[in-house]
Each structure stands twice: as structure tokens, then as C-alpha cells.
């Protein structure tokens, strides 16, 4: 998928997608992603199997992540350059939100 199309589809993105992409800056399988996200959010987000499976399928289909290896039927994924670019843009958008909402807190 071209960057332009990916931008259209993924920005702004859901928390689930954001944290999955963030986790896949390192190669991980589905369960490891869930553990990593749980740790990052201190237990607030505990991704379910169905959500992880369908999100990985979607992200792989759109070329934001790619499988790098496989062990016991578990695919290990890593973010692609398109995925990184999208993640970077989304992080920028969130940083702007954070900056602009500073006065509220």
C-alpha cells in the first residue's frame, strides 16, 4: 500500500493499532505484543486474541508490518518502512494534541 493510501486509512488510528505498531519496532509474535502493551500501559490495555489476530492480518495486508520468521505456527512480525512512517506521523499528531491540551490539566 502506498504511503498516501495508508495515511488515509490509518491516521488517526485506534489505540490498539498504535500500540501494535509501536511494539513491532522490535520483532514480536502476537502474545508478546499483548504482554508488551500491557506493560507499557501498566495493565490498562490487555489486548485479546481476536483483536490481535485481526489487527495483525489487516496491518500485514496493508503492508505496514511484515512477517520475519515463524516458530510453532506463530508468526513473528516487524514494522515496515511504510508502517514506521505512519507511526511517526501519528506520534506527531498525538504530540500536537498533548501540547494543545496542556492548558486543561
Amino acid at each position: 500500500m502506498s504511503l498516501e493510501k495508508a495515511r488515509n486509512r490509518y491516521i488517526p488510528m485506534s489505540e490498539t493499532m498504535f500500540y501494535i505498531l509501536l511494539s513491532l519496532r522490535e520483532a514480536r509474535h502476537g502474545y508478546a505484543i499483548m504482554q508488551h502493551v500491557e506493560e507499557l500501559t501498566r495493565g490498562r490495555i490487555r489486548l485479546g486474541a481476536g483483536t490481535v489476530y485481526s489487527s495483525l492480518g489487516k496491518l500485514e495486508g496493508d503492508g505496514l508490518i511484515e512477517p520475519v520468521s515463524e516458530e510453532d505456527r506463530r508468526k513473528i512480525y516487524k514494522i515496515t518502512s511504510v508502517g514506521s512512517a505512519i507511526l511517526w506521523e501519528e506520534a506527531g499528531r498525538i504530540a500536537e494534541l498533548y501540547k494543545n491540551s496542556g492548558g486543561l490539566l
Partner: protein
Amino acid sequence: MKDKKTVLFSAFRGGNVVPANFENWFERMAAEGWHVDRIRQWNSLWMTFKKGEPRKYRFVCDMQFSERKEYRATYEQFGWQFLGRMASFRVWRMEYQGQRPEAFTDKESVVARNRRTVQAVSVSFTLFLIMSIFYAVWFIFFPDSLSAGDRTQIIAAEAVFLVCAILLGIVMLRIWRNRRR
């Protein structure tokens, strides 16, 4: 005491056409000690439960037209037990205490699961609809090609197809109205 119980049309009883209701129904059965350990193709029509210890299980129904090879491995690693499937409708189970486990943890994936379920129903719905339109057109526009006996048969067929199409339409509508859970 009876140690077996057969339920007819389990997938269509009460509100069970809505996947979340079907899951809750399985959960209530398990809490009363009624268990089904394997799900097979025809279990939507009849399903036999065996009496055992009451257990706290979370069930998940997942419609997947084709599963990628890591599908089962992913669920299993998260602690789910695969019970089987009725056509593309897969049933998972997990024993729990405390917080009830979820397989779909955001709104998008819950809605997507329900959308896939509606799509599955829409295949049969479309077939019945096409058949009922076909017979209606035949009957209305080419009545002369039909003998009296043919007409009776066509009206009977039309009634069956139309009723099926309407029922499936209601099922789709009901699932769609409950798509957020």
C-alpha cells in the same frame, strides 16, 4: 437424574443469533454444569450437553471465513481452548476467575466480528431472495406456461423461499443492531 440434555436449534433460540448472546448462553449452561466439549457442523440444529461440575467459562464465537495458519496458535497462546466450528462459526472457551476474559478488546474488532457474522448470513439470505424473486417473476409474467398443478407447486416453493428470506433478513438486522457488543 438425567445426565444429558439435547437442545434443538441452539443458535436460533432466544436472542442467540446475536453472537454475544450465544456466548452468554453457553456460559450460563456451563455455570449450571451443562458442558459441550466439541462443537460440530450440525450443532446449530441440535447440540448435546453432558452434566458435570458447574464451571466458570467464558465462550467466544468468532466468524472467520478462512483462517490464516496462525489463527488457532494465536488464540491458544492466549489461553483459549478450541471447541470446534459450525461452518465458519468458531467457538472458543476459557475457564476463568475474577475478570472475565475477552477476545475482542476494542470496539472496532467487536463490530468487525459481528459484521462478518452478518456477511455469512447474507449468503443464504441472497440465495433465498433470488429464488423467491425468480419464482415470483415466473408466476406473474409467464402464467400461461404453467398448468394448475405447476402453479400450486410454485406458490408453495415461493412461500418457503420468501419465509426463509424474511427470517434471515430479521436475523441479519438483529445482529447488526447489536453489533457493538
